[in-house]
């Protein structure tokens, strides 16, 4: 049994970690937070140039042609560094949509640009308050023109290309929309994590090109979101580990009552529980990575499992990291809130925790009902 990443994959992870430690220290994240931008352009360009963005995109489409396990370890490092770049929107979603459902022409047109970072992609499906379901999608396409409003759309303000879920003849399909083209209005909206931009996209007769079979939009979205959930779980696992380390380091340094606060059981046990959450989430994320890389029939269960567990862990670790820091944890100057913000951003990106809990139970049930269930 080898339920682990290979030595080469671990080397790649180490490279990514060193690169991000150098190019994406907390000061870079903070600059985005305070600077009125919604991403770090230089970091994005370098991630493209070094092949991190194109890791799982085949070489024939301008990628590096490694695989999804490689993308998982890169994702973990991006999460650890809470990198302020649109990798999830552009790579885990837009590129994966193209790979899953794009025509040859569509793949050739967009994947090389997504791999290099020249084009930023995103996925626009939700339309306001509440859980997104197939029935909640109102945006409509007629005669190749899209009209409707999508909100919130991660990275919608900086993206050039959007995969949009919309209805045509009553059925939900997916469309490629050039966000720099006519009929598109975008507005950046304030959010709990300004280091990952959110926007409202309004379409009025915007040209839209069908992606994948007509009427299959919700199924495709669901499949690609499963894949993205696993990659995002690695970001959450990386973030959990870093928040735990921050809390541990502070508990070792900070003195109170004549002792390091890390010698008090109340603090030790809080950190131990963070370690437990982070460990469970990591193991579940590995299960997701295995399913993703092998195309296992268990992928839907594994994705929901990885997602629910990783969301729990990152929220748990980031909130208790602030608690370990006490009052200092609530200052703007300390980095704790950057992780707290990101954990709560990721908990909602791709759908709420309760949505994924529901999916997990549905899928466990289907697996139990399947005659060939292992």
């Amino acid at each position, binding site marked *: 049994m080898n339920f682990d990443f290979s030595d080469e994959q671990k080397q790649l992870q180490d490279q990514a970690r060193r690169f991000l430690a150098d190019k994406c220290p907390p000061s870079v994240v903070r600059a985005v937070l305070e600077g009125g931008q919604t991403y770090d352009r230089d970091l994005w360009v370098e991630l493209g140039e070094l092949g991190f963005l194109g890791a799982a995109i085949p070489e024939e489409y301008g990628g590096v042609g490694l695989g999804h396990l490689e993308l998982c370890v890169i994702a973990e490092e991006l999460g650890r560094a809470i990198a302020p770049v649109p990798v999830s929107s552009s790579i885990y979603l837009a590129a994966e949509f193209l790979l899953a459902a794009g025509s040859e022409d569509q793949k050739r047109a967009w994947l090389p640009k997504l791999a290099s970072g020249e084009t930023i992609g995103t996925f626009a499906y939700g339309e306001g308050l509440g859980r997104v379901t197939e029935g909640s999608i109102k945006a409509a396409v007629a005669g190749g023109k899209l009209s409707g409003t999508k909100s919130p759309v991660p990275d919608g303000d900086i993206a050039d290309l959007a995969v949009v879920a919309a209805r045509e003849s009553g059925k939900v399909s997916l469309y490629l929309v050039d966000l720099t083209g006519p009929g598109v209005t975008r507005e950046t909206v304030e959010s709990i994590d300004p280091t990952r931009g959110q926007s409202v996209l309004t379409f009025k007769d915007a040209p839209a090109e069908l992606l994948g079979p007509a009427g299959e939009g919700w199924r495709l979205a669901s499949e690609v979101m499963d894949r993205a959930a696993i990659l995002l779980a690695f970001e959450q696992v990386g973030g959990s580990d870093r928040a735990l380390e921050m809390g*541990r380091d502070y508990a070792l340094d900070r003195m109170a009552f004549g002792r390091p606060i*890390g010698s008090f059981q109340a603090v030790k046990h809080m950190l131990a529980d963070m370690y437990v959450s982070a460990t469970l989430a990591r193991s579940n994320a590995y299960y997701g990575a295995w399913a993703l890389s092998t195309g296992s029939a268990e992928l839907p269960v594994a994705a929901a499992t990885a997602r629910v567990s990783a969301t729990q862990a990152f929220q748990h670790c980031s909130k208790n990291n602030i608690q370990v820091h006490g009052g200092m944890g609530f200052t703007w100057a300390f980095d704790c809130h950057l992780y707290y913000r990101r954990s709560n951003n990721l908990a909602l990106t791709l759908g709420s925790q309760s949505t994924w809990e529901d999916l997990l139970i549905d899928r466990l049930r289907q697996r139990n009902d399947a005659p060939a269930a292992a």
Partner: protein
Amino acid sequence: MNFDDTPEEAAFRAVARAWIDANAPKELEAELKQGGFANNGLKSVDPIVVSKAWQKKKAEAGWACLHWPKEYGGRGATPIERVIWGQEEGVYGALSGLFIIGHGMCGPTVMAWADEETKQRLLPPLASGEHIWCQLFSEPAGGSDLAGLRTAAVPATDGSGDWIINGQKIWTSGAQHSDYGIVITRTDPTLPKHKGLTMFWLDMKTPGIDVRPIKQANGQSGFNEVYFTDVRIPDSQRLGAVGQGWSVSLTTLMNERLSIGSGMPTGFPELFDFCMNLRTEDGLAIDDRSVRSRLAGYAVKASGLKYTGMRAISALSKGETPGPENSIGKLVAGATMQELAMYALDLQGQAGLLSDTTQAAAGARFQQMLLRSPATRVEGGTDEILRNIIAERVLGLPGDIRVDKDVAFKDIPTSGRG
């Protein structure tokens, strides 16, 4: 990343599977599958008789105590082979419950500290299940603070070199069935508590040993109190030097933590199955959104433990020592099962309070979990001790300040109210 066996592992698995197929007591399979959570649950046969029979059969074919050297009745197998055997043995592994302490803890301690003649005499019958062993460590005054133990061993006054033991042990699993035990005693109360301890092995039929099963909070009796009244044993039964007992006990406890891949149960599959079949006024319980949310929370814990175990097995497969992540198993499983049991009863409404196996839902298994699970959170290291271990050994946080560390044992206060 895969779950596949290496060719060597696959070959080993095939041999193990074939032998188990041909030799396992298949007539017990159904009953073992229905087994309880604290024991093998056998009712139609004497569990001790069938456990010993299976162990003997395994020993004769070289499948007993896989991790022990051959000369002491083991197989000299690698850690990963031991895991594979456990997977293949499946439900029949429950028949080994009686021997876990002997094989996992007492045996390795004897192996590390006894002389060769003693090892040759004691270990093979332990491996083959002819003898059952217990570990006499915890005391009323020494649980989490094991080194606070008070059972005294003093040299006999007749110059024989024998030791006379007086005191009381508690929470001794399986003492009522045991032929032998290892016992940790205090031989010098004038030294600080960790320094005045000495370990011995003994025959449980030695005069002066009185085993009394404890009636547990759940009504069962798996643990015992063991009283020692002027128990005389020869110095040749000492394990390690006089005053070295703490180091010797660490050998035992380290072996306790090495048992990997066994997978602590959480009760999740049972609860999921229950919710799939429970009809409420609004339909099946599993269709209720609040139920689904709770189930999902338990599901990711059960899954997280399973795949944490897989990571540990992978490390073994590569010949590495598994990382510290394995220390979370009991901590997560115990608390999860307790919470889950309470939730299962809640789903049953007022009828959840029934524990009569003919009346209660699911054969009262959730009521049994409810009543047993407090013990899981205490035995073999309390939740709090496990969190300390994670905090100190994994995260590198400082140990607690120990006010009794350099004090003579006899001068340590024994009452919290002066």
